[in-house]
C-alpha cells in the first residue's frame, strides 16, 4: 500500500523497470567535462510499482468520466473517446512536425478542414490554429491588434478595455502585449455599464476584450452598440471565445462586430482538459487583421494539395508562437468532434447547454438560492450568490463547494467573477442528463439545510475524500515544492 507516499518514497536503490532499459552506447566521444558526475536522483521503482502508484493516484481525481463537473466558464462536457482514438492513429502520432509537406497531405488536409469549420462558426475570414490555449489565443489576438495599429502608424493607443467580470487572462494578456488593461464595471443587470464604457473609450483605446455570453452567465445585449462605439473610436474588438459553447451554431461573433477571437477547443470542441491542459486556442480574424495572423497555417495550393503558409508569404505576420505548429493532437480531436456533430449538432450544443443551465437555475431558485441576475436568462451558465447563507450561518461559497465533493459532485467555479460576492458560477453543459441536474440541485438543497442546521458540518467539509480540507496558507508560507529526497 502506498497511500500518501510519493514515488520516491517507494523506490529503493538498485531497483528498476528493467524492461525499459534499451541498449546503451559508448559516450567516450563526449568530453568528460560536459558530463554529469552523479546520476540524477530519479525514483527507482519496478514497473509494477510505477503502474500501481500512478493508477492509484488517478483514482484520487474527480473527472468528467467519473463525476458531474459543473465548473463555470470551463465547459466540462463529455470528451468523446472516438475523438481521442482518431487523434491516436499511428500515422498521426508518429508524424514528425518538420516532415516535408509532400508526405504530410493527410495531416494538412485535417488542419485545413478544421480551419474551415472555425471560419464557418465564427463568421471570420481566416484562422490560425497555432495558439496552444485560450490565453495564448488572447495574446495572439491582442498582438495582432497591436500590429494593426502599429502598421498604420497609430502608436498612441495604449489601453485595452476589459469588463470587471473578465477572466484574469484578459488583463494579463493586455499586459503581456505591452498594453494597460482598463477595467469597466458591469451593471446590476449583468451587462457592461455603458456610461462607464463610453467614458473609457477614446483615441488611447487599442481595443476591447469581451466574452459574450459574459462570465456573468448572461448575453451582453448591447453588443452592437458597443461594437459601434469602439470601432468609431478606432479600436478593435476581441472576442474571448471561452463561452462560445453557449451560442455555437446560433450566433457568429463576426456578426456581433468582433474583429478577432479565439476559441477554446478544450471547451467548445470537447477536447479533454487533461488535469490542466493541453488545450488549443485557435484565432480567427476578419480581413482587416488577416495580414498579421501568426504562422504557420495551411492553405490550398494550386494543384489541389495543401501547403504551409509561413513568414515568407506573410511578412506582416506577428510570427511564430511556438516551436512547431501548435497542439496538433488537440486540433485533430476537435476536428473529429466537429465531424461527428456536423452543422445540426453544433446548433444543438448551444441550445441544450442553454436549456440545462436555465433548468438548473430554475431548480436552484426554487430551492431558495439567490440568483445573481434573477431577471435574466441564463446563457450556458449562471451565478448564484451565497451572500445570505454566509451572513446568516457563516457558511461560505467555498464551504458549499467543499461539501458538494462529499455528495459526489465536483464544485462549480468559486469566487469568479470577482464582482459577485460569495458566488458560484455553475455550468452544467449539454451532455448532462436531467437526472444528474436534479441530483445536483437536491444535493445543494440538502447542503443548504445542513448549513442552517449544522453549519460546522459544512464548514469542515469534505469528510468523505481521502483527505480533509487542506491548509493553503501553510502551503504558501512553508514552501515545500519538491525536490529529490537526498
Amino acid at each position, binding site marked *: 500500500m502506498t497511500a500518501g507516499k510519493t514515488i520516491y518514497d517507494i523506490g529503493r536503490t538498485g531497483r528498476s*523497470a528493467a524492461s*525499459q532499459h*534499451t541498449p546503451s*552506447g559508448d559516450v567516450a*566521444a*563526449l568530453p568528460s567535462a*560536459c558530463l*554529469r558526475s552523479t546520476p540524477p536522483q*530519479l525514483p527507482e521503482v519496478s514497473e509494477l510499482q510505477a503502474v500501481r*502508484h*500512478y493508477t492509484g493516484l*488517478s483514482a484520487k481525481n*474527480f473527472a468528467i468520466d467519473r463525476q458531474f463537473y459543473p465548473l463555470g466558464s470551463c465547459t466540462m462536457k*463529455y470528451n468523446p473517446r*472516438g475523438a481521442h482514438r482518431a487523434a491516436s*492513429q499511428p*500515422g*498521426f*502520432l*508518429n*508524424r514528425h512536425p*518538420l516532415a516535408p509537406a*509532400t508526405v504530410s497531405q*493527410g495531416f494538412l488536409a485535417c488542419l485545413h478542414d478544421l480551419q474551415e469549420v472555425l471560419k464557418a462558426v465564427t463568421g471570420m475570414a481566416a484562422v490560425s490554429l497555432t495558439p496552444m490555449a485560450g*490565453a495564448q489565443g*488572447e495574446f495572439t489576438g491582442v498582438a495582432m491588434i497591436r500590429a494593426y495599429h502599429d502598421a498604420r502608424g497609430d502608436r498612441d493607443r495604449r489601453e485595452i478595455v476589459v469588463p470587471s467580470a473578465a477572466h*484574469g487572462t484578459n*488583463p494579463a494578456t493586455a*499586459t*503581456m502585449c*505591452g498594453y494597460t488593461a482598463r477595467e469597466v464595471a458591469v451593471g446590476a443587470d449583468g451587462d457592461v455599464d455603458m456610461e462607464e464604457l463610453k467614458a473609457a473609450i477614446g483615441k488611447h483605446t487599442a481595443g476591447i476584450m469581451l466574452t459574450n455570453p459574459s462570465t456573468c452567465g448572461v448575453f451582453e445585449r448591447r*453588443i452592437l452598440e458597443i461594437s459601434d462605439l469602439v470601432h468609431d473610436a478606432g479600436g478593435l474588438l476581441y472576442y474571448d471565445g471561452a463561452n462560445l459553447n453557449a451560442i455555437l451554431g446560433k*450566433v457568429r461573433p463576426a*456578426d456581433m462586430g468582433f474583429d478577432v477571437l479565439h476559441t477554446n477547443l*478544450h471547451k467548445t470542441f470537447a477536447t479533454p*482538459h*487533461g*488535469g*490542466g*491542459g493541453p488545450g488549443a486556442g485557435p484565432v480567427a480574424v476578419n480581413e482587416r487583421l488577416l495580414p498579421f495572423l501568426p504562422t504557420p497555417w495551411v492553405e490550398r495550393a494550386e494543384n489541389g494539395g495543401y501547403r504551409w503558409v509561413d513568414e515568407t508569404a506573410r511578412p506582416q505576420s506577428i510570427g*511564430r508562437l*511556438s*516551436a512547431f505548429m501548435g497542439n496538433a*493532437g*488537440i486540433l485533430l480531436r476537435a476536428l473529429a468532434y466537429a465531424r*461527428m456533430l456536423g*452543422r*445540426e*449538432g453544433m446548433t*444543438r450544443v448551444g441550445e*441544450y447547454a442553454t*436549456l*440545462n443551465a436555465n*433548468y438548473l437555475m430554475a431548480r436552484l431558485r426554487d430551492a431558495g438560492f439567490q440568483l445573481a441576475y434573477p431577471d435574466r436568462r441564463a446563457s450556458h451558465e449562471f451565478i448564484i450568490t451565497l451572500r445570505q447563507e454566509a451572513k446568516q450561518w457563516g457558511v461560505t461559497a467555498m464551504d458549499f463547494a467543499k461539501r458538494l465533493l462529499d455528495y459526489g459532485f465536483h464544485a462549480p467555479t468559486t469566487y469568479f467573477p470577482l464582482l459577485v460576492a460569495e458566488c458560484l458560477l455553475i455550468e452544467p453543459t449539454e451532455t448532462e442528463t436531467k437526472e444528474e441536474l436534479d441530483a445536483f440541485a437536491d444535493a445543494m438543497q440538502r447542503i443548504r439545510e445542513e448549513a442552517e442546521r449544522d453549519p460546522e458540518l459544512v464548514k469542515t467539509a469534505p469528510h468523505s475524500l481521502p*483527505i*480533509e480540507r487542506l491548509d493553503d496558507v501553510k*502551503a*504558501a508560507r512553508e514552501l515545500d*515544492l*519538491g525536490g529529490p529526497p537526498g
Partner: protein
Amino acid sequence: MPFIPHTPADVRSMLERIGAASIDELFDEIDPALMGADFGAIDSGVDEMTMLAELAASARQDETGPCFIGAGCYDHHIPAAVWDIASRGEFLTAYTPYQAEASQGTLQLIYEYQSMMIALTGMEVANASVYDGGGALAESVLMAVRANRRAKGVDLHHVAIAGACHPHYVDAAASIVRNQGIAVDRLDFGRDGQACLDALDAAGAPAAVVVQQPNFFGLIEPVDDIVRIAHERGALVIAVVNPLALALLKPPGEWGDRGADIVCGDGQPLGIPMASGGPSFGFICTRRSHVRQLPGRIVGRTTDRAGRPGFTLTLQAREQHIRRGKATSNICTNQGLLVTAATIHLALMGADGLRRAAAGSHAKTGRLVRELTAIEGVSQRFAAPFFHECVIDLGQPADPVAATLADAGLLAGLPLERYYPELANCLLVCATEKRTEAEIARFGTALAGALGR
C-alpha cells in the same frame, strides 16, 4: 443527437419548470438580427465509425519509413504503460486541480514531477509546465528581465542568444517578448558551430544570455565559459536544454561559477509522441529566490485539517486569476496531461533507463554519421562533439535530396538552408535509440543513390 442525452419528455418537463415555451425562447434576449447566420458551409455530422474511417485514411496517408529528423522533436521509445495510464479518464478528463481535495492525484503527480525536474536540471524549483519549448524560452526571457530589473548597468531591453539556438524557439520568443519592448539578439556562432565567446564578449550588457545545450546543431557548448562571462556582465543565464540529454550531461545548476539561473526546454523527449510537434510541454526551473517570478502553476506540499500530508496549488498570487494585469504571465491552461505522461515516463525509466536512452541515441547517431560520411563527398560539417544530432554536408543542395528520400519513405533529416543560407548543402540528422542498424544502412544506401554515388 450525438452526446446530448435529452429525451423529448425531458425537454418538455425542463421547459415547463423554466417557464418557457421552447428552447428558442431561451435565446430571446439576443437581438434577432444576430441570429440569421447560415452555417451551411459545415457538413452534416457523421457517426463515429465514419469519422474514424476518414481520419484514419488521412493518418495512413502520412505514414512514412524511419525518421531521422530531430531538431527539437525526437522519436524515442515510450513505455507502453505511460499512455495506458495517462489516458485514464481520471487524468484525461479532469480540469486544473482547483479543488485540491478532489484532485490529489494530479496534484501529487505534479509535485513528483517538480521533484524529478529539479533532479534533472540541478535547480531548486520547477513549475507545472508552460506550452512548449518555444514558449518556455519566451517566458524565461520575460522572467529573467523581471528578475534582473534591479541590476545595474544591464539593458533590460535586450537579451542575447549565444550560438545556435533552435531558430523556431528564438522566433517564438522574439514574437512574444517583442510586445514588451524586448529584443532578442542572435549572436554569431563560430566556424566550429559552437557559440562564439568573442561575440558574447562584444554583446554589451544584455539582461540575459540564452544558451542551448546541446545546441541546435547537436553540438556540446562550452557552457561553463558562457555562464561565467554572462554572470560577469550582470546577465542572468537561461539554459535551454534537452531533458533527456541531462541524463548524461552536467546539469545547468552546476554550470560555470554558480550555475544557470533559469533552465527551460521542451519535455517531448520524456515520453511524448512526436505527433506533429504537439501537444508536448515546456518546462522552466529556477532558483528558489526567483520562484515568485516563475510563471504557471506550482504545487506545494501541505497538510490537511487532520495533519495528513496533501498537495495543493500554491503561490497563486503570481497568477492571472488572482493578480490579473500584474500576473507573471497570462498562462492558464497549460500542458498538464503531458506532464502526467512525462512523470510516469521518468518513474519507469529511472536514471539508468534515461541514461541508456541518451547514450544509445548518442551512439546510434555516431553510427549514422559514420555510415553517411563513408559516402564520397559527404562530410561532417562541424568537428565539435555532438550529442545525438549532427550536421552533415552533402556537397550539394540538401533540400532536393531530402525531398527525394522523403518520396522514398525515408525522413532524411532537416535541410538547413531555410535557417542558414550558408548551410544550404547541409542536413541536420538524428538517430535515436529506436533506429535500427538496418534503418541506418537503408539511409546510407538511399543517400548514396540519391547523390548518384
